[in-house]
């Protein structure tokens, strides 16, 4: 499969995404500079984590105006698969490709640690290799991962089954203690109505190999590889 990873000034998990896709998952990967508009015909676009534009002003706020994001939006509108990880999730929300916003962590501090997330919906191109209720151990590393959406938005997320992963404990219980950042209803990742755009705060790019302490992120990549492009979009 062919992946395009966007690179903004200040992206820093672009390298991790490139590595896990090329060297671990053995896929075709190209890096797309933010000033370019040609996505080079990918099957899936990855908007990686990091600190685009230093996260100055507000995470993801400036990056969404990069020329490349217009192309990403067009690609998504046509049903192309887009995954945003951490800062990538924030950018997708800012760009309006996903609903809601990510605000400052409840504890105000940056948090880097492993967390568990529970798969709430596996009928997506990003989670089809998982079972509903399955827990994944994946690291987080963010200061602004506190998912917020207004009541109406939340209802529509639920009505459309767009909540894909939630923070949980090791056994899969979604509890307040297992919520690292204050996210509404422990939301860790959501997709759009069409199921082809996915954003999550945890890092599957840092958990694709045993040597790193967890390979659960591999299930996300495997799902994407298994999804026949566009096929699952009609679910």
């Amino acid at each position: 499969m062919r992946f395009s990873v966007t690179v903004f000034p200040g992206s820093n998990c672009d390298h991790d995404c490139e590595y896990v896709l090329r060297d671990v998952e053995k896929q075709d990967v190209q890096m797309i500079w933010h000033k370019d508009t040609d996505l080079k015909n990918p099957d899936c676009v990855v908007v990686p984590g990091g600190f685009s534009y230093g996260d100055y002003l507000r995470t993801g706020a400036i990056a969404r105006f990069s020329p490349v994001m217009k192309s990403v939006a067009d690609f998504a509108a046509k049903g192309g698969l887009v995954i945003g990880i951490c800062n990538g999730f924030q950018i997708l929300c800012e760009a309006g490709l996903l609903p809601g916003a990510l605000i400052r962590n409840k504890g105000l501090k940056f948090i880097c640690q492993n967390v568990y997330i529970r798969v709430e919906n596996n009928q997506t191109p990003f989670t089809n290799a998982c079972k509903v209720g399955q827990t994944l151990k994946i690291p987080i590393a963010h200061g602004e991962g506190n998912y917020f959406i207004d009541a109406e938005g939340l209802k529509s997320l639920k009505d459309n089954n767009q909540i894909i992963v939630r923070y949980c404990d090791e056994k899969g219980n979604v509890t307040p203690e297992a919520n690292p950042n204050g996210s509404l209803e422990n939301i860790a990742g959501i997709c759009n109505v069409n199921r082809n755009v996915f954003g999550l705060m945890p890092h599957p790019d840092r958990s694709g190999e045993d040597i790193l302490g967890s390979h659960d992120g591999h299930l996300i990549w495997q799902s994407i590889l298994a999804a026949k492009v566009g096929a699952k979009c009609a679910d």
Partner: protein
Amino acid sequence: MSSSIMDVEVTPKVVKEHGLKPEEYDHIVKILGRKPNITELGLYSVMWSEHCGYKHSRALLKTLPTKGDKVLQGPGENAGIMDIGEGWAVAFKVESHNHPSAIEPYQGAATGVGGILRDIFTMGARPVANLNSLRFGPLTDPKVKRLFAGVVHGIADYGNCMGIPTVAGEVVFDDSYSENCLVNAMSVGLLKHDQIIRGKATGVGNAVIYIGATTGRDGIHGATFASTEITDESTEKRSAVQVADPFMEKLLMEATLELIHGDLLVGIQDMGAAGLTCSTCEMASRGGAGIEIDVAKVPQREKGMTPYEILLSESQERMLLVAKPGCEQKVHDVLAKWDLHAATIGVVTDTGRMIVKENGKLVADVPADSLTEAPVYHPAKSEPAILKEYKKFDEATVAVPKDLNEVLEKLMADPTIASKRWVYRQYDHMVRSNTLIRPGSDAAVIRVKGTQLGLAMTIDGLGSYCALDPYEGAKIVVAEAARNIACSGAQAIGMTDCLNFGNPEKPEVYYYFDRVIAGLGDACRAFGIPITGGNVSLYNENPTGAIDPTPIVGMMGLFQNVENRVTQWFKKEGDFIYLLGEIGQSIGGSRYLKVTHGKKTGLCPTLNLETELKLHKSLKALAESHLIQSAHDCSDGGFAVALAESCFTGVTHEAQVLGATVTLLGTGRVDARLFGEAQSRVIVSVKPSDAVKFEEIVKKNGVPVERIGVVGGAEMVIGSEVKLPVVKLADLFFTSIEKTMAL
């Protein structure tokens, strides 16, 4: 406008304000064959400050061992570089940012990280890991809490934003640092041998190019400031605070690496202390050339800046580079790609002089070498009387506490001993997906992608030992760092150090300095570890006294095969527990003596270098033959604390807790055996099926070894002295700092 400062007359008072001694001024007059103007005086003042010129330390630093087969670049450059095989090399260095952090903790610490990162990537290396060593007063003081929080936040924000994992560090809280906190930052970078570049200017006519942030009035006199004691006046003298801009630095890093790896440069140097002045004269001097620049061409942030201010500004995130002939345009293209400012501000000459003009008008003309060769002093030294007092301390006057469980609980929660999870959870320690051993174990380990190689790293300091016995203390610092590397299974290959002391012009301080350097040197020679670079921070003093002499040691270890790495945590119920080394007999200088009895005195532990080296060798052999499940050295808090720390993993949300039951070896004071800090001791766990082979290897290496117990259960039991639920110990250990900081 700018003529006003240019006209300032150089009087003895002005000379003094610039921190220069009358004889130094006379020397300058001799060098120039005339009186310097105010701008030239400014140049000498910053370059001959302790911070840049190492006036009071250079003579002793020369005695340190710096050579070795693997050393590709020793001291004298922005960072040391060592060969790690397969065409790869590692660049590393530690540096202090103590004074700026004391005044503005967030920005001071952040710019400290920025500075050390620039040192690494200017060598052509991509930074892959950061470490830090911190010292504060007691954490009960609200002022200290703010300082600690600000410093950690600054380090976190900078490294996180740059995308460089902060993988290890250490934090000590002690009265001696109440008025002078220490913030030492270390960075580690990877590069290929053929990517090494140095900070030199060569090739007459080559363009000298300025890149990065614009120049403002921030930090003017920072270097001189870092070389004097903190007084109320110095708070006045400070100009605008340096503000960290990690985003700019990230761009600068990517652009710089692209320039270097594209082979477009002759040399490059970052602008750190003493800014443009330092980078210009050092590059010229290293290249045996001259440089001529025009300050009017320097991108400026503020209006009406004088040449003096432009030359001395310490605005952050700037670099100076010399392009290869014909590459100037390509350099500008790369910089434009990264949206960075760039300006050609001068040329390389063959005059050996640093010539500064402003719009073509000469403002300074001095021999470049004379700036980089500050006078060398050999200050007087005298042994502090207090050292003899310490030695007279009689341990018998300290009663052995009845409840040793209670003592252990108190030690586990002591902020110096307790887990620093509150700190490292704020650091992205996983970015770049190389971190195989995260913070919390004796040494952090990262892999080198595409190879079997791995790097172990640690940073350590023991000011309280050095205060009691500077020579022995310094040896122990090196030994402890090397031991942490050995526990991880790696081979220590090189070291960097930051020497934090008081005012060296005071004979007692200089005595400590002298003895510490002797100790560091002897230990490194015994272990065959070269020192490839470092930093000196003197004048860490305030009206109530100097800090404990605090050498901080950053140690690099190498794995030929990173699969051999070992962590400090017990792995499996039923594994045997062994103690390598001998149980202690003394409580002198221990954290226990301080925490439980309020005393900082006694004989500091002693260290036998040969014994220590044998220990390291056997640990490496054991790791390579996969015969140990875990290894953890006994340091702060002694045997009991080390055993407890082996019972729980440091990783949040997967806290694996495994109890242990062991016998307490030895005879004599039970508190000394539990909490004393005798050296060269490591607790390991071993699969029962490996026990025979394990014992063989250890004995062959001549290391004392004793099987003391077994892993398992919910409690930690030491003889009849200690018996506590492991979850209770873990809770005290992990939440102590969190709870204090939440108040």
